[in-house]
Each structure stands twice: as structure tokens, then as C-alpha cells.
């Protein structure tokens, strides 16, 4: 039972003391911040995960020994019923140097300056793919098609590359550009062309670059020749390793955009045969092997999480079985494991952010505590009177606890309402602000997003609201207890 005077007096105290508004707005602000900031952050994180997911094969067989061939692995993996398709991949690193560089735009390295910016220096992670097989495993065509949208966001009109659409599968495998395009590019680069345009056949393997390289080579046009330089340590006949460099001329075939920043910044896609040839595994040599460093895997659709985990272990064993005896263990990684460093960094950041928000909540709770404590200290005479009139210590404490409850509930309600409203109208507000003042609260283009990715999670709303109230009430218990334990007689000591 709550004695009638407790809520009655609590209400009077609240209404006559404006400092309670401060405590209430503290809660409002904390709840608001928790909802809005977390909604935006959750939106960003889910956007980031979507991008990473798009850029990664569902599963990947990796950590293979040197000189591993694709075919036996393909046979072993595709024998598993859970596997829908596989694609060979050959990873290496190299340097890209466009042949044609407009005057005045000479790379700074030519001025005998060391340049460690990997994009300007032309450094690239080369990813050799078999386009036909790759398309069955990753959304390769979508990567290329998306570049148009992404450039459009930056007000650049650039139609996507058509190398993947060539009707001739052999030309597609080489990512060859249309004959006329390459012929024109040769002329632009000032190379000798002794064949008439109509008889010319493209010869340079195509290379698809991540769209984030575009700002560093804005003059590049389709077909422009690029020299690709790479080096690898190879064992010589006497067993000592030796560094051997390889150079090949490729043609710029266009851009791709997975959305995953790190991938789009560093990766260059090129035909796997081109890379294999560079490493001495020419397809025309009967002794050559179909070299791979990884095998990308797509599973059958609709598998349960449990089935996927089981498949991962099974595939690892199947792959290991076809590797030479005594090889180091290979790994099969799902898309999250492939990007574990990045994803766990994002998760840590979100946890940190939630911790900061929790501190805001802590401050709000502290304000409630301070206001109530002050009230108890100032009202010690009233507490004595209430005792003299027959108020129980519990009921006296309840006066102050109720003050805290009202402040917490009103503050939370207001904060939840404002937070939801802010989150829902964030994009409108952002646009309106941009239209009227030119300011952007959330620079969407920085993240290549059309909209601020707000994700209002009802579970989070409930969690924050109940958490705030419970927390505030717990904090209010301390001053309430202090009031209940006050000795009433002290209030009647002489003034």
C-alpha cells in the first residue's frame, strides 16, 4: 500500500521545484541519444556488412600449399551435395603503370620521390579469376554494373564495362575488349599499329580496377594499355630462392564496385590465365598446372546455419584429402571469417559507442541522484513533520522514490518519442538542412550512400526505455533510503 500522502507530496515537490526538469531532460537526452546514435550506427553496420558480404564468396578454401592445382580440389569440393559452384582464384600483388599519362600528370615517383600511397604508386592486390566460374560464385556482373551507380553518386557518368557480356566465351575468359576499342587505344598510346582497324584483333588481357582507384587515374579510358609488373620468389636448380620479376601488358577494361571499401581500393581483377602464365604455368605447356591460391565456393541455397557449419568442416576434410600428404592444414572460411579483422573492428566500435552512450545514461542517472539527494537534505524538516503525523519510514521514502520514478518515466517517454521521431525523420531533416543552409549533418557521400542508413530496432527501443527507467529508479532508491532512515527528532531541534 502506498499511503496517500506519498504521491500527493511527491507531485507538489515536483511541481514546485524546477530543478526536477533538469533531471528529466537529462534522462530525455540520454534516451534520445541512445536511440538516434544507435539507430544510425546499426544502420551503418548493417550496410557495411551487406557490402562485405557482397564482396566475399560464401565460403573460401584457402591456406593452400604452393603449386596447388584447381582441378582435383574442384572435383573434391563439387562432389559435396552442399556445394553449388566453385571458382579458382589466384592471388598475388603487383604494380600497375598506365602507359599513357597525360602531360603534367606524371606520377610523382618519376620525380625520384618515394611514394608510399599504394593507390598512387600503382600497388594492387591482383586477383586472377576465371570470369565464367567466378560469376557462378560471386555477383561479379553486379560488381561491374554497380560502378555506374556509384560514379553517378559522385556526378560522374560512366557506363559499366561490357567485357563480361562478350558473346565469345574465350574472349570473355580473357576479359578482352572489343577489337575496335583496343585498336583505338593503341593509337592513343602512340604504339605502332600495322593492321587496319577492321582486321585488328584484341590481344591484351583485360583488367578490372576497383572504382576507388578512379580518382588517381582519371584520364584512363577503356582499352588503355597498362603495364603490370609483379615479382615472385622462385627456387632455382640449386635450391636457393631467387626473386624473379614478370611484366605483362594488359588493357584497362573498366571499374567494379563491391561497396566494401578495402576491396575496392586495393583489388585488380584479371584473367587467371594471365597470372598463371606470368608464373610459368602457361596453359599451352602440357606440364603446366592450373595454379590456385584459393577456391571460392557457393553453397546450395537455403541451408541452415547448422548445415553450413557442418559443410565447412566436411569441405575442409575433402580438400585436405586431395592435397599432398603432409601439407599444412588448409582452411575453409565463411564470409565472416574471411573478413574477421574488419568485422570485429566494426563490432568493437559499436560496443565502444554503446559504452559511451551508457556513460551518458550514467550521467543522467547521477543528475537524478544529485537532485533527489539535494531534495532530501533540504526537506529534512518536512520528513520530521511527516513522521510526527504518523508517516511510516517507507512512505516517507516513497515520496522521494516517486519523484524519481516520475522524472524517469516522463524523461524516458519524452526521450523515446523524440528519439523515434528524430530517427524516422533524420533523412528529411538532413535534406532540409542541406537545402536551406548547405550544411550536412551526416555527410552521406562520404560513405557513398543515398540515405543515412537509419535502422530503428524496436527491441532496442524497449531495452533503452526499460533500462533507463529501471536504472533511474535504482539510483533514486538511495536518496529515498536516506529519507526513510532520517531521525525525525532531529528536525525538531531548536532553530
Amino acid at each position, binding site marked *: 500500500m502506498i*499511503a496517500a500522502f506519498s504521491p500527493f507530496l511527491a507531485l507538489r515537490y515536483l511541481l514546485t521545484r524546477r530543478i526536477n526538469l533538469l533531471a528529466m531532460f537529462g534522462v530525455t537526452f540520454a534516451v534520445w541519444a541512445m536511440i538516434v546514435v544507435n539507430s544510425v550506427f546499426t544502420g551503418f553496420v548493417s550496410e557495411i556488412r551487406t557490402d562485405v558480404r557482397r564482396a566475399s564468396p560464401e565460403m573460401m578454401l584457402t591456406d593452400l600449399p604452393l603449386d596447388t592445382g584447381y582441378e582435383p580440389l574442384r572435383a573434391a569440393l563439387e562432389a559435396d551435395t552442399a556445394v553449388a559452384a566453385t571458382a579458382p582464384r589466384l592471388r598475388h600483388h603487383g604494380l600497375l603503370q598506365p602507359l599513357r599519362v597525360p602531360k603534367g600528370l606524371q606520377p610523382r615517383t618519376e620525380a625520384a620521390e618515394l611514394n608510399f600511397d599504394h593507390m598512387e604508386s600503382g600497388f594492387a592486390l591482383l586477383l586472377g579469376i576465371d570470369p565464367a566460374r567466378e560469376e557462378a560464385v560471386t555477383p561479379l556482373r553486379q560488381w561491374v554494373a554497380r560502378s555506374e551507380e556509384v560514379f553517378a553518386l559522385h556526378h560522374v557518368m560512366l557506363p559499366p564495362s561490357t567485357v563480361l557480356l562478350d558473346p565469345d566465351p574465350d574472349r570473355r575468359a580473357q576479359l578482352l575488349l572489343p577489337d575496335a576499342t583496343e585498336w583505338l587505344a593503341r593509337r592513343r598510346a602512340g604504339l605502332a599499329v600495322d593492321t587496319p582497324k577492321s582486321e585488328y584483333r584484341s590481344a591484351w588481357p583485360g583488367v578490372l580496377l576497383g572504382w576507388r582507384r578512379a580518382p588517381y587515374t582519371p584520364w584512363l579510358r577503356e582499352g588503355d594499355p597498362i603495364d603490370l609488373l609483379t615479382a615472385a620468389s622462385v627456387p632455382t636448380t640449386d635450391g636457393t630462392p631467387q626473386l624473379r620479376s614478370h611484366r605483362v601488358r594488359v588493357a584497362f577494361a573498366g571499374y567494379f564496385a563491391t561497396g566494401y571499401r578495402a576491396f575496392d581500393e586495393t583489388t585488380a581483377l584479371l584473367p587467371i590465365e594471365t597470372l598463371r602464365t606470368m608464373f610459368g604455368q602457361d596453359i599451352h605447356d602440357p606440364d603446366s598446372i592450373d595454379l590456385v591460391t584459393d577456391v571460392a565456393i557457393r553453397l546450395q541455397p537455403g541451408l541452415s546455419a547448422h548445415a553450413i557449419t557442418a559443410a565447412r568442416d566436411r569441405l575442409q576434410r575433402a580438400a585436405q584429402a586431395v592435397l599432398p600428404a603432409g601439407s599444412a592444414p588448409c582452411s575453409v572460411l565463411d564470409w565472416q571469417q574471411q573478413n574477421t579483422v574488419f568485422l570485429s573492428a566494426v563490432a568493437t566500435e559499436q560496443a565502444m559507442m554503446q559504452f559511451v552512450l551508457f556513460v551518458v545514461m550514467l550521467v543522467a542517472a547521477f543528475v537524478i541522484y544529485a537532485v533527489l539527494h539535494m531534495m532530501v537534505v533540504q526537506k529534512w524538516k518536512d520528513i520530521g513533520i511527516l513522521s510526527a503525523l504518523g508517516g511510516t519510514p517507507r512512505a516517507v521514502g516513497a515520496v522521494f522514490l516517486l519523484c524519481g520514478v516520475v522524472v524517469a518515466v516522463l524523461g524516458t517517454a519524452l526521450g523515446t518519442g523524440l528519439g523515434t521521431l528524430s530517427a524516422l525523420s533524420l533523412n528529411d531533416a538532413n535534406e532540409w538542412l542541406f537545402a536551406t543552409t548547405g550544411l550536412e549533418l551526416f555527410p552521406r557521400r562520404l560513405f557513398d550512400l543515398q540515405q543515412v542508413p537509419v535502422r530503428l530496432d524496436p527491441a532496442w527501443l524497449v531495452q533503452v526505455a526499460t533500462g533507463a527507467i529501471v536504472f533511474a529508479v535504482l539510483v533514486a532508491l538511495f536518496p529515498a533510503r536516506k529519507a526513510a532512515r532520517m531521525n525525525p527528532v532531529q*528536525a525538531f531541534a531548536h532553530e
Partner: protein
Amino acid sequence: MSTPVLAAANVTKSYRLGKREIPVLRGVDLALMPGERVALLGASGAGKSTLLHVLGLLDAPTSGQVLFDGRPVHDLPVAERARLRHEHTGFVFQFYHLIPELTALQNVLLARMMATSTLAYWRTRGAARAAAMDLLAQVGLQDRLHHRPSELSGGERQRVAIARALLAEPKVVLADEPTGNLDSATAAGVVELMFSIQQQRGLAFLLVTHNEDLARRCDRIVRMRDGVVQGEPART
């Protein structure tokens, strides 16, 4: 012989100051009969207020007993003592002790909100209001119902406090120098009011005062000295 409505039996009370024990009450025996008007006199610091607080269950005796209607009550659980205090005794203090945020009417009504739940009070609030307004009219404050304590004079404040002490219809009123803070004319008015209500309702009345004249108008005078009381007849 009837039972005293309120009694102290060999009550002692001492305060601890550091390691020293300071005895304030050293075995007080005092019985208050129904309808009896008793004055409690004594030098400042004699322990009059302390005794009043112990009798009103605001403070616990160090030893001895406090009896309501012959029943020992000083060691009941705290909530039970609060309920008894509410039903049994009304307090009037020298410094009025009204709650500054509340109007005169609300201050009086507060006495009705102690032992009832919010819901029960809400159902009977009309009757409570009528009773409080009636009491305020009795103490001559029918025109001051909605004034806050800061908007009332000292005498008016004490009248509000008297009305508040009476609203729960206690059997005993404990008054600690109720006129100590008022000028003599105002004090006279307040005293007349208290005595007339006391007589009219047949209340047991314990009045702490320094005023010998006032004390002589009581049925009995009790003097406190060295932590014990000595009774003497008042009216000659």
C-alpha cells in the same frame, strides 16, 4: 480508577556523545488521564522536548516503558508505532512545522493521508476536505484556506498546525512551547483556542511551557529537574 491514556514508566533516555553517555531522562514516571490538561515546566535543557518525543513515539527510550491505554508500545515495529502515533497523538510545535509547498488546507489534509491508501483517500476526499475546512473554520481561518505558510502570520500558522494535529482525532495532544514564538496578544488567542478545543473534545493535553501563568491554568503541573519529574497541583 481509569487507565491513563498515555504514560511513561521509569523512562530513561541518554545520548551518546563520542564515548560519553549523556543522560537526559533518568527515570521519568508520568501518567496522562483522559481529558486531563498537564503543564510540563523546567529549565532549558531539562529534557522536556526529549520526553515529549519519547511519549509521542518519535524517539525510543533507552529503558523504561511508554504505554498507550495501558499497553506498552515503545518497542513495537516502526510501522506500527507510526500508525499509533497517527491515531493516538497530535503534535504542536514551537516553530509550527508546516510544509511550505502546501496551502493551509493541504497542510491540514496531510494528516488524513497518513494511514489511508491513495485509492481509499481518493474515494473519501470530499469528507476529508469538509472536515479539514470545518477545523480551519474552528480555528478562525476560514478565509485563509488557500494561503501558503509564507503568506500567513505566526499566529495563523500555529492555528493551522493545531487544526492539523486535531484532524486525525487523536486522544492526546502533545504541545511543545506552542506559544513560545508568538507575541503575548497572539499567544493568548492561541491558548484560548487550544484550551477550548481541548475541553470540548475531552483531549488529554500535555503542554510544555516556560510560562507559569499558563501552567497554572492546567489541571496539574509537572516540573522537570535533573532528568526526573516532580508533580504538584496547579490550581489553587
